[in-house]
């Protein structure tokens, strides 16, 4: 059981930005001094930072040596400088993107919680909903998203819909998987205590599913930011998606890259927040995994 969980975890870590995960996933709970904890965190972070620095250095070097036109490929230094000069505008466009992402994820969570609960509690619902769930993933978002703009305009709603469409699947499937990983023996125990289906669900299946859910949530979060950008890209008043599109049309490739950097930062922060949330919701889980690791 524990092994499955761990492999699931690493699976998701491998999928998205592993260098962000390291400091968040292994916090030092029982370190006596704060500075010691900070030092340990720094020790774990520096390889990632060095890696990024080396890549940027190479990029800088090659572009300067080849004298590439900055509208084709700017140097990282130029991206940084121009990004800083335009920080006000970037921030103003990042805000709506962040807002859409958060509202989108929250809505997707509600949708998947409801769906997963219904599917788990009723066999018939399972047969009806599961195929639709899978089919929903073959909807080409690229085609649907512009339709959302036609139907619902340039506001918040079409973006939220795109995010829901993209993210509810991983969270729903991980919840269902989590429910199903409940030990039949434990269900028997609850029944022998006189518990019914609902009690089994709340007291056993839901807590069992949590580690799986958080794995799904991490996948969903990284998709959600991209979905928000895409939702804006097809039509919006402001937001990083439309910002990058407009800067691209203005041949400001450096500012397009600056937008990419901001997007990446938002993704990383949200990704890290899932670990904070996990720690709050399942204090027993991270502690037991830490204990396993150290033993």
């Amino acid at each position: 059981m524990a092994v499955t969980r761990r492999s699931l975890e690493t699976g998701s870590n491998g999928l998205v930005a592993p260098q962000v995960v390291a400091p968040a996933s292994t916090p030092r709970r029982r370190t006596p001094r704060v500075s010691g904890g900070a030092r340990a965190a720094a020790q774990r972070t520096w390889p990632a930072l060095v890696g990024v620095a080396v890549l940027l250095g190479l990029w800088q070097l090659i572009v300067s040596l080849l004298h590439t036109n900055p509208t084709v490929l700017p140097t990282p230094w130029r991206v940084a400088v121009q990004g800083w000069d335009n920080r006000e505008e970037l921030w103003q466009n990042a805000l709506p993107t962040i807002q859409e992402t958060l509202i989108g994820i929250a809505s997707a969570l509600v949708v998947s919680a409801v769906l997963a609960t219904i599917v788990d509690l009723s066999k018939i619902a399972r047969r009806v909903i599961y195929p639709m769930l899978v089919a929903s993933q073959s909807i080409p978002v690229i085609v649907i998203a512009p339709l959302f703009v036609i139907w619902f305009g340039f506001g918040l709603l079409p973006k939220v819909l795109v995010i829901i469409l993209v993210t509810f699947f991983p969270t729903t499937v991980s919840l269902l998987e989590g429910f199903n990983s409940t030990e039949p023996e434990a269900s028997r125990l609850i029944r022998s205590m006189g518990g019914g289906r609902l009690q089994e669900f709340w007291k056993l299946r839901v807590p069992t599913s949590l580690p799986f859910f958080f794995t799904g949530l991490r996948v969903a979060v990284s998709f959600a930011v991209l979905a928000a950008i895409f939702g804006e890209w097809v039509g919006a008043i402001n937001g990083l998606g439309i910002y990058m599109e407009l800067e691209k049309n203005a041949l400001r490739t450096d500012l397009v890259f600056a937008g990419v950097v901001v997007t990446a930062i938002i993704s990383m922060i949200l990704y890290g927040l899932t670990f904070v949330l996990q720690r709050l919701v399942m204090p027993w889980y991270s502690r037991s995994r830490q204990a396993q690791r150290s033993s």
Partner: protein
Amino acid sequence: MKAAASPDTFLVHEGSSVEVAGVSKSFRRKGESLSVLQGISLEAAGGEFISVIGPSGCGKSTMFNILAGLEVPDSGDVRVNGAVVTGQTEHFAYMPQKDLLFPWRRVIDNAGLGLEIQGMKRSQARARVEPLLETFGLTEFASCYPFELSGGMRQRVALLRTVVQGRPVVLLDEPFGALDYLTRTDLQLWLSSMWEQFHWTVILVTHDVPEAVLMSDRVYVLGARPATVKRVVEVDLGRPRGLDCLGTAHFAELEEVLLQELRTPERPADGLEIRR
């Protein structure tokens, strides 16, 4: 280990007797009817400790499900204090083979799980469990999570979770099967002393012959499928039984009788048939 909690905190139905009368059960598998239990009868008077031993796959778990009310027999009854309770769950407190402590519940809340399922608020369940922690040697672990406990401690929590429900009969399903020899012996002696203190009516199912002898007033030996009661052995060792009891000649004698009974005829006969 002396009684710190008054027995009434357990709501023990002192003297609840249990009787299994002619229980049979068969399953359909691939169109064939497979008889698992055939006319099983056993009984325990109030406050008695009985054991059921048998070869693996003899249908013990089916019998347990029937006792716990999770399955209904094809024929026969389960009676508690003379009343037919077949198919009802509320008379038996069941302790499974694995401890099945929930990793997200602290010790005190794992112990109170049954009470919560039966409708108590968490605070009420805690209040019920709390005075018993000391008796079970769990006081300092009350707010630990299960992963912080040793295998033996986890079984103590599991037993507390079982008996605190205050149901008339306690069902133990190979409760110490997964533990190492030393821990197992410790817990067997401990359980024995707990039983001597509280006199629950207990049905223990086990593979472990010495365990059955050490704990029980009476041992039922089941034969291979379909399971029937092959022999009933009264364990006439005195109480309390401690470590010293394990070394006595009479203990060894009873052990041998049971082992002999478990190993008898079917096996060589099976072997011969295979050779042909």
